[in-house]
């Protein structure tokens, strides 16, 4: 990071082919493009998305609904086909292998063992007709040679680890007998029981109330440290990102528009969209009773993407080039941003007003 800050004012286009096996990255997503077929044509939900994640790192993907962040996570797991999507370009390097080239059977062995996933909705993420213990054991039995009894003991241990009281009793209960927070702990236990290298958490706290949210985030932080894993956290909540992330990837309309360390993003947001997101957090250097900031307009529909920069219709700083040419991700001031005007005076000035 330090060396990058030195070349601050210089900018360079990030080479999308910038990946080599064994470069110390656990996950390297390069040029990922995922399409959905709708009304007779393919629409790109995720378009040439690249980012990476190092071992032990927590990376947050932030963006509004429809920005493509969940599609990105499901594409990494290769579960997107079950949702009707299709990856048409790019590669997903995980631990030296391109997951997009893996067979279904190879992928099945990756899921739940080396890459796990926690979903948004704890109320519906568990099968209602099986006990929570049997659902966790299933993950163990799928990936190891352990006996049912060993798997059950490990299940109970895991439930204890995620902070569920009386795990022996809880393991024999059904999802409907547990509260939302408990269920999310069960989902986390299920995801982590095989000790994965990477946990993808897709809005893990969105459906929970605030106190439970904090507990689950604490839990994820603690488990990340104890189990030495990396976390890819998908969220729309800048507060969660600030609390959890080492690095932040901001997505808008299927593109990565800004990427950098959590300090960079929060202290010096370069993209007008990121600036807008930060400005719209209630209570941030705001006066009580002041009007909340909102980004004008709404996310464009997938089938109806604007020319040039996808943010240009909503951008207060848009100029002619923004309406014709899509900006590439480039290094500016120590982190990557996709904005033609990132170094121009009005955008730079906006940084200071939105940053902390």
């Amino acid at each position: 990071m330090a060396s990058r800050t030195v070349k601050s004012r210089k900018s360079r286009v990030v080479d999308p082919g910038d990946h080599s096996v064994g470069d110390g990255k656990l996950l390297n997503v390069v040029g990922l493009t995922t399409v959905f077929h709708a009304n007779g044509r393919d629409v790109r939900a995720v378009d040439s998305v690249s980012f990476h994640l190092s071992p032990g790192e927590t990376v947050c993907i932030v963006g509004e609904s429809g920005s493509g962040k969940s599609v990105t996570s499901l594409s990494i797991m290769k579960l997107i086909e079950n949702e009707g999507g299709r990856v048409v370009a790019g590669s997903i390097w995980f631990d030296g292998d391109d997951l997009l080239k893996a067979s279904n059977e190879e992928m099945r062995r990756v899921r739940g063992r080396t890459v796990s996933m926690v979903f948004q909705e704890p109320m519906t993420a568990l099968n209602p007709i099986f006990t929570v213990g049997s659902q966790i054991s299933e993950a163990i039995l799928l990936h190891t040679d352990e006996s049912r009894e060993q798997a059950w003991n490990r299940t109970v241990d895991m439930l204890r680890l995620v902070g569920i009281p009386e795990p022996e009793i809880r393991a024999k209960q059904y999802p409907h007998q547990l509260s939302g927070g408990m269920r999310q702990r069960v989902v986390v236990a299920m995801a982590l029981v095989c000790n994965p290298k990477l946990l993808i958490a897709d809005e893990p706290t969105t459906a929970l109330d605030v106190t439970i949210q904090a507990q689950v985030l604490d839990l994820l932080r603690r488990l990340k440290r104890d189990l030495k894993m990396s976390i890819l956290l998908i969220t729309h909540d800048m507060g969660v990102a600030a609390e959890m992330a080492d690095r932040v990837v901001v997505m808008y309309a299927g593109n990565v528009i800004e990427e950098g360390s959590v300090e960079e993003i929060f202290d010096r947001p370069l993209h007008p969209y990121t600036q807008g997101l930060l400005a719209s957090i209630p209570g941030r250097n705001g006066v009580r009773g002041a009007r909340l900031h909102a980004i004008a307009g709404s996310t464009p529909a997938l089938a109806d993407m604007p020319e040039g920069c996808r943010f240009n219709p909503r951008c207060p700083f848009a100029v002619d080039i923004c309406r014709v040419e899509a900006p590439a991700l480039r290094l500016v001031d120590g982190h990557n941003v996709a904005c033609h005007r990132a170094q121009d005076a009005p955008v730079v000035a906006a940084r200071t007003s939105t940053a902390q």
Partner: protein
Amino acid sequence: MIGYIVRRVLAIIPVLLVVGIVVFMLIHLTPGDPAQVILGDAATPARVKVLRHQLGLDQPLWKQFLTWVEHVCRGNLGTSLFYQQSVVHTVAVRVGPTASLAGLAFVFSLVIAIPSALLAVWKRGSLLDPIFMSGSLLGVSMPNFWLALMMISLFGVKLGWLPVSGYVPLDQGVGLWFSHLLMPAFVLAIQQAGLIARMLRDGMLDVLHQDYIRTARAKGAGERLVLLHHAFRNALIPTVTVIGTSLAGLLGGAVVTEVVFAIPGVGNLIVQSIASRDFPVLTGAVMFVALVYVLVNLLIDLLYSVLDPRVQYR
């Protein structure tokens, strides 16, 4: 749970009473005098009058009904006007053939429905799915009697592989029993299978969109495990309702099929007793059917609590 079962069993009584009233009224309000039917067209009015008196048919309707209820409460459903046997006995001897036919048809329908639904779901999106859909539609909408007659003329008459009609009790040989029931059971099963398979397929496709299926896949469950374990068990819950009504319908007597194949079952008995104005037997048979429906429904409701832990009876 025990309390629930007791209450459900007690609730059968008013149901049967209502069924009894409706059937009793229906019979007595339709034209046709049993005494006249029994004695035939040549009978003199005087003889008919005597018989009417003997049968109690000259009493006012409400009195006849009260007498009937009183007898029913003592377990006496009356005597057949035709067979000179008690109604209970007349119906009871018909239960064997009907139960055999229903049981076999039920097994056939599940054996056809479940694998074909699983196959259709497994190969969803392929050409197999529309084939399955038209197949199940064909099964549901094909008239029973038509399929029965076609099968009789092919396997019974032309090829001579199977007996054309009739029924042989189980104790006279499993082979004979089975060969006589094969065609009628198949005819009944095709219709039920179409319904059950369609329900199961739709249920499974519905379940496959649920979040917990995605969770199962995310933890590394393969397609087979997802379908057979996670999706099937969940889709079974709505399907059991259809399976239950199907079983109740079969046990209640498959009227057309029993008549076409000359199987001496409850369905056949109902048709005969209507034709011969044998009111006590008709009432008894219909009440038997009602009892079967109520009991099977109770069974299905209890099955829900086994299949779905969220369902609990107190």
